[in-house]
């Protein structure tokens, strides 16, 4: 990712760029899908669904135009890896999308990017123009018979549009409301046509998979979690940034304390959210000395999950009630309002947090919040409701003293009583 001028077609090609496309175009589309299946690549947007399986759901005999949609909405707190991929390696994304187009019989791709990333849309537009000029997009790509074009599309500030069906609603020019599944987008996606929606990191991995072969790529990681993964690290570490690690890297403590330079100012680790804000928060006791492997299975066993790979590291100065309140405000703001449990539930939760911050919390408020979360989790129209509930459920479970301090003593664990 740090190659000088790596965003240009020339430098990308000088480093072997578009060789995977040449190779893929000589393979049968079904064989390309097989390689992706063998790679054990799981979607890097958060849900972790096996990519090859998702591709195989697209009906081969559909007479409709098929679409490849790149989810570049990246709005999960703590997550900023896709930014770096698009900024420094835009042609890898395009190459992955064109290979996906060949595998799926698609003629059109869209890159749906959050509106705030305007500078990245400009980078992608330049890369697309370069690719068109070089015959890598357009009619009869590299003489293969594949006709495909890719366009950028701009979102406008709505986290929910990272949910694949809400993204499709937005791509059609509507409010970003999620859609009922089934039908899944692979069968009825944008314009009711077969559509594969993949994250930037997922699609960018595809050229590597084709170059190396699916099995070799899988072996970079673990049996069920193939390849490498980008982790974006923020918060109280000495070296925040984006790190690429093999799936199954052991262990999470070493990653935070050594690779990321340890906790800033020599303070103690208090908490870490390892997968973006919508996974369970972990306390230091779940991490230190536990040899937690950084992959889907390892993090679930340790009490959290991979999600989007957005590590938010918090030191001992952070009050978990205040930090959880901050995330709940995020989910309240970003709830699309489509369904009642999420819309009303997140609003109610913020009201309780406000009451607590003002020193008027009641001992029974923790249980009340858990009850509200129970009425959101699994009962909202889309996963945003679950994402709102999980930080609160895990915070109350893993940091009971912080809640007790507020609810009984009316003060924050860090001695600060002002609102975060």
């Amino acid at each position, binding site marked *: 990712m740090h190659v000088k001028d790596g965003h240009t077609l020339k430098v990308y090609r000088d480093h072997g760029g578009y060789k995977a496309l040449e190779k893929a175009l000589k393979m049968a589309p079904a064989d390309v899908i097989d390689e992706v299946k063998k790679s054990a690549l799981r979607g890097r947007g958060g849900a972790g669904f096996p990519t090859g399986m998702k591709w195989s759901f697209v009906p081969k005999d559909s007479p409709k*135009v098929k679409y490849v949609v790149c989810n570049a909405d*990246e*709005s*999960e*707190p*703590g*997550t*900023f890896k896709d*930014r770096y991929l698009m900024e420094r390696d835009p042609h890898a994304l395009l190459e992955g999308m064109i290979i996906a187009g060949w595998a799926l019989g698609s003629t059109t791709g*869209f890159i749906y990017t*959050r*509106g*705030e*990333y*305007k*500078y990245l849309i400009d980078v992608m537009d330049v890369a697309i123009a370069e690719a068109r000029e070089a015959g890598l997009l357009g009619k009869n790509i590299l003489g293969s018979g594949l006709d495909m074009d890719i*366009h950028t*599309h*701009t*979102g*406008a*500030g*709505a*986290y929910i549009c990272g949910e694949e069906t809400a993204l499709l609603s*937005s*791509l*059609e*020019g*509507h*409010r*970003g409301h999620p859609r009922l599944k089934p039908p899944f987008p692979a069968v009825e996606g944008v*314009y009711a046509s077969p559509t594969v929606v993949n994250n930037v990191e997922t699609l960018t991995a595809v050229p590597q998979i084709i170059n190396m072969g699916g099995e070799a790529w899988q072996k970079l990681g673990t049996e069920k979690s193939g390849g490498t993964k980008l982790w*974006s*690290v*923020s*918060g*109280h570490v000495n070296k*925040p*940034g*984006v790190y690429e690690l093999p799936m199954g890297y052991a262990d999470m403590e070493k990653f935070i304390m050594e690779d990321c330079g340890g906790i800033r100012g020599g303070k103690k680790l208090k908490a870490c959210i390892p997968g973006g*804000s919508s996974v369970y928060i972990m306390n230091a006791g779940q991490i230190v000395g536990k040899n937690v492997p950084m992959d889907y299975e390892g993090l679930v066993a340790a009490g959290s999950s991979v999600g989007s790979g*957005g590590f*938010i590291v*918090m030191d001992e100065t*952070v009050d978990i009630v205040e*930090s959880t309140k*901050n*995330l709940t405000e*995020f989910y309240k*703001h*970003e709830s*699309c309002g489509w369904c009642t449990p999420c819309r009303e539930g997140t609003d109610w939760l913020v009201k309780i947090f406000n009451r607590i911050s003002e020193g008027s919390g009641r001992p029974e408020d923790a249980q009340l919040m858990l009850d509200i979360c129970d009425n959101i989790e699994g009962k909202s129209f889309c996963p945003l409701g679950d994402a709102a509930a999980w930080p609160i459920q895990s915070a109350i479970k893993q940091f009971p003293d912080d809640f007790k301090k507020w609810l009984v003593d009316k003060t924050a664990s860090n001695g600060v009583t002002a609102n*975060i």
Partner: protein
Amino acid sequence: MAAATPTSYTDKILVSDEVAEFSAAVVEEMKMHVAKYPAERSRSALIPLLFVIQRERGWVDNPGVNFLAKFLNLEVTDVWETATFYSMFNMRPVGRHHIQICKTLSCKIMGEPEITDHICSKLGIHPGETTEDGKYTVTMVECLGSCGTAPMMQIGFDYHEDLTTEKVDKILEACK
């Protein structure tokens, strides 16, 4: 604090029949956006075109929305229902420099409150307000995807990251 204008959602939508006019170059740009989508799916261009309206008019106003409705062959309410969903569309005029400060967790724990206080006291406004001279608007926003370089703010479309109060002073100075 100086008198200031709130920038929350307008209470004056759908009250004007005026239709905005745009130069041939802007209309051409709009047509280029529409051309990305299948012919019968021009509504897909609505969000990109709302950005054009906002850039040209300063905000998403009635005449601009009326123009878009005609341009895309939609009802005016179709345009409003989409525009009002997305936080990047300003339903009131904002300052020439729209300062959007990220308030979400990573920025919050890395010093956002101090940055916000510094900016607001320098400009003499509260978050959500515009300075009397119409130069600056400060808005608190949710995660902008710069968590590793927190705290951060966006002015217009430019990201400013790893902020300190000294850095903020220089950035605001450059805005003048």
